[in-house]
């Protein structure tokens, strides 16, 4: 039985944050919730967690309404990180564990285990405020899983982490999945989703524009991508634009990316190139990337350059709060 979100809508005053959102998450999987800032990801998560109530629709996990489920069903990593910064790491984590009814001995053992895994065992008795942002985020992750929740909900878990810590967190995700947990996380970093998620939902302005298994989503696009390189080094490839609906989507340093609509045989490109006497050094047929799928459905990238820069450099109050 899975986590089922059925037709939830929520508005804050005149702002419609979610409009008839439905999707399902299979248990034991990692699920990606994609969307630009303000698309409604956080509101959706808060409704699943029952810290906000939807105006319409319902959420069930294993057939039970989320409003009837015990709190320890869920583990939550909010987008806005926050801990009691003047308390020691172990104290803070024990406190949250105690709220979920975890015994002190169990909590201590688990915390030590995870600190070891995250390679920060020496921070056990340090105050949270003495830790770097990245390390605080690891503590926050531990706080979300100490009570062994069935479903782990994480809002932008990778934002603000350096590559080493991103890798550690990815490993932790896989570890949790191997323990049979269900993981849902939101992001606008497509590469991470391609790497981790088996299924996704893309939300745009409060609506689900596409959802399902990643493979199916890609196939459903009904088109293919051709990467082509010739001795011409990307010069003089304008002739391609004239072919049956095929268009150039990107010019890279040593190849061009072409979009081939469904119903057109990608081989056509190769034939045409050879007929023109081009010397083909690379010809590759692939599925569209998630980034392309996102742009196709939403009409713009998940994060523009400025947003990425902001997300990486600061963790301020960038997120629009619901009104």
């Amino acid at each position, binding site marked *: 039985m899975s986590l089922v979100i059925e037709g939830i809508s929520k508005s804050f005053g005149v702002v419609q944050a979610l409009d008839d959102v439905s999707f399902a998450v299979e248990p034991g999987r990692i699920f990606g919730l994609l969307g630009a800032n303000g698309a409604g990801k956080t509101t959706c998560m*808060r409704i699943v*967690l*029952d*810290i*906000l*109530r939807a105006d319409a629709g319902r959420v069930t996990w294993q057939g039970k309404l989320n409003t009837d489920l015990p*709190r320890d069903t*869920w583990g*939550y990593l*909010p987008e*806005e*990180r*926050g*801990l*009691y*910064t*003047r*308390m020691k790491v172990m104290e803070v984590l024990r*406190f*949250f564990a*105690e*709220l*979920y*009814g975890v015994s002190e001995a169990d909590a201590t053992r688990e915390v030590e285990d995870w600190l070891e895994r995250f390679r920060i065992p020496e921070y056990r008795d340090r105050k949270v405020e003495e830790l770097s942002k990245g390390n605080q985020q690891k503590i*926050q992750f531990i*706080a*979300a899983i100490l009570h062994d929740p069935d479903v782990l909900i994480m809002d932008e878990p990778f934002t603000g982490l350096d590559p080493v810590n991103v890798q550690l967190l990815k490993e932790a995700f896989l570890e949790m999945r191997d323990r049979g947990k269900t993981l849902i996380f939101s992001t606008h970093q497509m590469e991470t989703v391609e790497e981790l998620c088996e299924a996704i939902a893309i939300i745009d302005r409060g609506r689900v524009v596409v959802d399902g298994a990643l493979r199916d989503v890609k196939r459903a696009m009904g088109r293919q991508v051709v990467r082509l390189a010739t001795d011409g080094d990307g010069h003089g490839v304008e002739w391609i634009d004239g072919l049956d609906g095929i268009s150039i989507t990107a010019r890279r340093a040593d190849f061009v990316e072409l979009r081939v609509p469904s119903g057109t045989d990608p081989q056509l490109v190769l034939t045409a190139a050879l007929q023109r006497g081009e010397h083909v050094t690379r010809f590759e047929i692939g599925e569209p990337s998630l980034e392309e799928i996102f742009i196709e459905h939403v009409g713009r990238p998940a994060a523009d350059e400025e947003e990425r820069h902001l997300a990486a450099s600061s963790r301020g*109050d960038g997120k629009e*709060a*619901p*009104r």
Partner: protein
Amino acid sequence: MMDLFPNAWTIARREFTQRVRTKTFLIVTLVLALVGLGFGLLPVIGKLIIGDQVTTIAVHSDDAELQSSTVAALRLILNASDEGATYDITAADDAAAAEAQVRSGDLDGLLTVTRGADDELSFDALTDAGPTDQRLFAVRQAATQVNIGDRLQRAGVDPAEAGSIFAPTEFGVTRTNPESPNIEEDFGANYVMAYALVILTFMAVITYGTWVASSVAEEKSSRVMELLITAASPRQLLAGKVLGTGAAGLLQYVAVAGAAVVGFLLQGLLATALFGEGGSTGLENLDLSVLLPWGIFFVGGFMLYAILYAGLGSMASRQEDIQQVTGPMIFVGMGGYFAAFVAMSMPDAGWAKILSVIPFFSPYMLPMRMLLSNVAPWEWTLGALLMVLFLAGALWLAARVYSAGVLLYGQRANLRSAWRAVRVAR
């Protein structure tokens, strides 16, 4: 109610230990305890400072006989009270010299007495005493007495008999309720006690209420809130916060009140040591039996205010907003405070009786009325019952504000938005 625990307890314990452990708490408590000790010793200190103050007044009259009789009379009247202040009254034959002395500050005042054409005495004081100076009142009253004595003498009353005319009237009071605390000899002490309890209640409500509100706002601005509300229910969070902060506040209060009591106890010894026997300050008759009922209503009232403070605090995203959003609570708290003061002179007025069972005011009114009048058992019962009801209602209301408020950032924090939160909350 049972689902509040154990989470409320966990939250309360964290709140208490984190607060009590800080240096600020320790220093503030120590300073306040010193103030409390000083307050307890105030009567002795006051006596020590103003006890040996002597007011020098010269009396002048062109009529030598009138001058000397006025001096004698004023000496007697002004030094009759045992308030400690003493008056040194001298005769001044040379008015101009005395006037110069007053102007140079060697004398506190010059009182000129003249007998007019109609034989009436008139007094004229030369002094730099301000309009609120108690000594000026005392001299004025004494002058009136001298004048009345003079009129009686002119009317042919024997000066020896004149004394008995001013003797106080015998006036006995028999109370229908023999248990009444309103016995004249205890009254002064009870009055002091009533004042003290009303002020203590007010300070606790405002100070610790603000603690609770800012603690909630801090959790909100540090964003730890979102984690908290997934781990515990708003009612558990509110109750825990109020209990934890309340316990820390109570600890501070006990330390301060304890120091004040030690001061009170010490002052008897000190007064005897400094002023010899009879250095009493009149506070030995304090009725301590009021402390238990006051304690109960104090704790109830504190929790009522604190719960609402916590709810309102959740509307504030920043520390600056707290003042604005908790304004109405301070207003209500002050209302109870002033109502209790006004009611001290009419503890059995209808409005005072009504207010004293209403939970926002009962912690002020009931103990005050118990000290200065009688509180019927049904009033206690009704007051306690309403308190419990209001506490449950406040917890429900505040939890609704809280569950919506903690997720709202960057909007105006006021009562209207709080009310909107109540309506949209889950």
